[in-house]
């Protein structure tokens, strides 16, 4: 590729250059046997400039403070799944920084979120990291209690609190909305509705995925050794695959992945699988591609026959195998699902801190939370969402598995070993990158115009919120 590329690219407007002499993501998907839906077949790239992004945001505790004051207080955040709180009285404690919220179902179709602190002397009403079921939220200290609807129930020795007006002592609330089985909260009572915040185009995408019909099959937590934004950005492009994950590149069209932005709060990439990396052109056969295919949830594939017939592509064979194996392995009907949805990696970011993966083989959700005490650490959560079995019996959501800092993702129950290895490789880069941001003589990071557009798009939103705009 080399010099010719840069000559050809020079003739194009900024952001228009693409991996040369290679099929685009849309070209690859268009050859599939079972055609992809509209949300897959669209493109929405926009050039957003080429300035460096300052490293202060990753290394300055003052920047983290601004984020806690101005960003986390004004954005929609995934707090829990509806399946965490299926019955009236069920609750789930969601923390962001030192703020803590009790998300609870107060009626069959009504969920509220309360600031998790007693209005008497501020004791947390429920411990962080817990969930459960109750008829009232009772403070363990002096026994003041609140009804599920947030109104005050009991003031112990109320004769001593004649100055307390009961109707002004309801638990303070946040905004709450649900989408795709996720419960979102926003501390800003004047915030845009969630659908407007995410935008009409993305809303059409997520509605097609029916994530409300999935359940949490596994849930893993681990502290990552870098600022939350660096941690997130490690997952926003396929540009790093050839170097960081060489074992995957053989069956991943990395350099010709597609990148899109939607409004201010959503972006995505589509990275097709079962296709050789442009970096490795001419070095591997279709049979090699098939043999080295690594996916997120390969447990359902079993020991299937993997010899290609003449003229058969690895990608099509993988799609056919996946359809059959996933239907059997997860007891679900996938007859209407396209090859691309079965195979490919659809990575979406919902600002500020959630990744949704829309496909079947990579059914993940990531959540990144800034460590409340240390801007150099991230509380990372990985969820695998599987379709609810066709018999309709929704399994209980998995309890989180907490990995120690030095534990491999491959040690977590429910994580495919190949996928765990990829996560470990991503984690290995992070401490070096955090330290490098602190060591560097260069005040900003430099980004590719196309392959790193999600990073730029994300950081532009961070800047707007952090500065209070």
């Amino acid at each position: 590729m080399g010099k010719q590329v840069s000559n050809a690219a020079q003739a194009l407007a900024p952001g228009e250059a693409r991996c040369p002499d290679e099929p685009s993501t849309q070209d690859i998907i268009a050859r599939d046997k079972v055609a992809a839906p509209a949300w897959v077949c669209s493109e929405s790239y926009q050039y957003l400039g080429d300035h460096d992004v300052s490293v202060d945001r990753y290394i300055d505790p003052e920047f983290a403070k601004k984020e806690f004051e101005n960003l986390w207080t004004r954005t929609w955040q995934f707090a829990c799944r509806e399946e965490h709180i299926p019955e009236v009285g069920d609750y789930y404690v969601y923390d962001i920084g030192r703020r803590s919220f009790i998300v609870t179902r107060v009626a069959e179709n009504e969920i509220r979120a309360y600031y998790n602190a007693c209005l008497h002397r501020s004791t947390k009403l429920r411990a962080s990291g817990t969930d459960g079921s109750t008829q009232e939220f009772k403070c363990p200290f002096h026994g003041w209690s609140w009804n599920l609807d947030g109104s005050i129930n009991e003031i112990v020795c109320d004769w001593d609190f004649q100055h307390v007006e009961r109707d002004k002592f309801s638990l303070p609330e946040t905004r709450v909305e649900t989408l795709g089985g996720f419960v979102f909260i926003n501390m800003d009572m004047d915030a845009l509705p969630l659908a407007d915040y995410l935008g009409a185009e993305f809303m059409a995408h997520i509605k097609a995925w029916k994530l409300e019909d999935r359940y949490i099959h596994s849930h893993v937590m681990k502290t990552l050794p870098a600022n939350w934004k660096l941690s997130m950005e490690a997952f926003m492009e396929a540009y790093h695959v050839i170097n960081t994950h060489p074992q995957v590149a053989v069956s991943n069209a990395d350099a010709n992945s597609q990148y899109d932005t939607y409004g201010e709060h959503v972006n995505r990439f589509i990275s097709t699988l079962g296709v050789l990396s442009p970096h490795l052109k001419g070095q591997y056969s279709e049979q090699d591609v098939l043999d080295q295919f690594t996916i997120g949830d390969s447990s359902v594939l079993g020991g299937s026959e993997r010899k290609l017939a003449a003229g058969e592509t690895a990608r099509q064979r993988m799609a056919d195998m996946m359809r059959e194996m996933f239907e059997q392995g997860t007891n679900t009907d996938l007859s209407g699902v396209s090859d691309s949805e079965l195979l490919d990696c659809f990575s979406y970011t919902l600002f500020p801190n959630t990744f949704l993966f829309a496909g079947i083989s990579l059914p993940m959700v990531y959540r990144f939370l800034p460590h409340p005490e240390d801007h150099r650490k991230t509380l990372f959560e990985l969820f695998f969402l599987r379709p609810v079995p066709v018999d309709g019996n929704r399994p209980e959501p998995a309890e989180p598995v907490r990995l120690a800092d030095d534990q491999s993702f491959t040690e977590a129950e429910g994580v495919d070993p190949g996928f765990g290895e990829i996560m470990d490789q991503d984690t290995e880069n992070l401490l070096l990158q955090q330290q490098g941001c602190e060591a560097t003589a260069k005040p900003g990071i430099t980004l590719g115009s196309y392959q790193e557009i999600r990073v730029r798009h994300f950081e532009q939103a961070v800047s707007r919120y952090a500065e209070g705009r």
Partner: protein
Amino acid sequence: MPPGSRKALKLDNTWVLVINANDRLFAVSGLCSHQAKPLLNGRVRNCRITCPVHGARFDLATGEALDLPATKPIPTYEVRVVDDWIEVSLGT
């Protein structure tokens, strides 16, 4: 006791809670180790029980306290099925 059911009973002055969770029988203290509130109506999920009053969670198999406000375990008891009877041993 079908799966998902539970029963509280007093044996020799000790409150015991017997639970059939995920097709496995457990016998634990009927009272929370935090403020001695009854656990009977606590939600059971993934072989853990949550105290309905203040939210402490306990592992049904080991009795271990998993969260604040509890810091001490609850007693667990040996349980077995003999013919049609469920027997609990207080081990005293």
